[in-house]
């Protein structure tokens, strides 16, 4: 009897193993990779989202930036060369120091591939400079009248990062990070895509690992709440009232800037230029932290006035209208996560 149970167990195990290998063969190499959980992906994304804040503000004298790297971590780029060591990395960040309200590095398209001893990843980078002296628009300007004002520009720096991540006792860190400037070329054959693997299910997907912490689903829902911000404001989610869609992202007693409560927030939303196909508010680098049983977060904003199809056909480019960062408090309600308070800090160099 015991043998039969054992044999059944072994058989089931083999079947499961074969199934896993079959799937890996389809998606990537069958060599053993470290299966990552949703929380691993989230923490690696959070590491990258902290990068821009740490570099642009040089907070803690550059050591917030340095401490994103493992002890032997390396940053490498065409302009800076190879930088290794905590003090050297902190000095690199200080060299870029533009003050606590400076925003410049907009990072998107984060791809992650598990490896045998950690993970590798890539993202796109575009650097955007926001004008310091913005022409006065007078009190209560009609927001529609301001569309198209140019108040910033793309830098000549853009391209992608190539990273190696390692999981340390303190969390995920960069073992190496390399910036590669964008380059168009006739050599598509040499492009290799990162591989995909199934994400490993884990109890922490829905349950925080520490009391007062956030589960993977909490992070995912807060990410989506903030990612919805532009959609709600600019197009109303396909509804005809962007004010209601916008105010619906907040708790009933929430505050954004000078506006408090549903009615004021809805009115604020309705003042903004909008349309079913309108896109204007681009948010990225979203940092999320558990805080006193709820959550806080911050992210970069760039408001872009895109050329419409007719203008694009004439080769007219889009323009940068506004940039800065938001700082938020999120609250979990019976209907899901909502914004409790939000403040916009316009980009400023020190």
């Amino acid at each position, binding site marked *: 009897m015991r043998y039969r149970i054992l044999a059944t167990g072994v058989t089931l195990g083999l079947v499961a193993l074969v199934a896993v290998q079959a*799937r890996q063969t389809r*998606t990537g190499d069958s060599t053993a990779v470290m299966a990552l*959980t*949703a929380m691993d*992906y989230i923490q690696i994304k959070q590491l990258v989202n902290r990068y821009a804040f740490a570099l642009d503000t040089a907070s803690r004298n550059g050591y917030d930036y340095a401490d994103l790297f493992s002890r032997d971590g390396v940053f490498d780029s065409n302009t800076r060369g190879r930088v290794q060591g905590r003090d050297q990395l902190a000095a690199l960040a200080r060299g870029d120091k533009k003050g606590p309200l400076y925003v410049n590095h907009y990072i*998107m*398209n*984060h*791809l992650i591939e598990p490896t045998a001893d950690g993970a590798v990843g*890539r993202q*796109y980078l*575009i650097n955007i400079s926001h004008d310091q002296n913005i022409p006065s628009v007078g009190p209560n300007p*009609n*927001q*529609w*009248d301001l*569309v198209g004002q140019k108040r910033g520009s*793309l830098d*000549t720096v853009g*391209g*992608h990062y190539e990273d190696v991540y390692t999981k340390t006792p303190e969390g995920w860190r960069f073992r190496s990070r390399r910036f*590669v400037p*964008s*380059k*168009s*070329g006739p050599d*598509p054959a*040499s*492009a290799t*895509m*990162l591989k*995909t693997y199934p*994400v490993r*299910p*884990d109890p922490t*997907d*829905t349950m925080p690992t520490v009391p007062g912490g956030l*589960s993977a*689903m909490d992070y995912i829902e807060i990410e*989506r709440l903030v*990612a*919805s911000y532009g959609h709600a404001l600019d197009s109303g*989610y*396909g509804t005809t009232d962007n004010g209601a869609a916008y105010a619906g992202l907040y708790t009933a007693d929430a505050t954004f800037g000078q506006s408090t409560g549903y009615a004021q927030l809805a009115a604020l939303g309705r003042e903004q230029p909008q*349309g*079913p*196909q*309108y*896109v204007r508010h*681009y948010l990225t680098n979203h940092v999320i932290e558990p805080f006193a049983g709820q959550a806080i977060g911050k992210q970069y904003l760039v408001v872009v006035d*895109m*050329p*419409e199809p*007719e*203008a*694009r*056909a004439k080769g007219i*480019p*889009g*323009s940068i209208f506004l940039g800065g960062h938001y700082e938020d408090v999120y609250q979990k309600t019976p209907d899901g996560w909502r914004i409790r308070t939000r403040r916009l800090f316009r980009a400023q160099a020190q």
Partner: protein
Amino acid sequence: MKNPKTNVSKAVVATLLIGIGAAPLVRAQQKVTGGSLSAADYIEIQQLVARYSYAVDTHADNGYAYADLFTTDGTFGNTKGREALAELARTTQKDRGGPAYTRHFLTNVIIYPTPEGARGSQYLMALDVSEGGKPSSIVHGGRYDDVYVKTPAGWRFKSRQLYPAKIGVPPPTAKLPPSTRR
């Protein structure tokens, strides 16, 4: 093929023209009834969306890396099927792809469960990123609306549609500057 504009496939142009008239067709964000996604599902779909930019910009695997992000009957706009999608990827920014080419910047990624799988949207910022010191520029932008399905090989795009940025009708008191309509 000397004028980059002609590189855009006719299918894409057709898609854009259709998109302009058909604004809020289906929006992922509206109240969804039924369906649920695990944390792993959300992450896998996020990764699918991130792969899109690399596949289209690098032209990896001669466009098939792009095509294989879709189901076998998957559509981007009016382009349907593996061969047509690979061709689309190869001819988008023809002669400009490559392993380090970055053009399609996506953010505001939202994903919602549906009874059949999932839907989602993102914002696109298509940039001409500086090469050799030339200024970078914003070429165009818009919103992708997607339908995803989970296949035995993982999550795939069942359909993907780009709606180019287009401002709505201003209230009577506002006077839109000529710069936006151009």
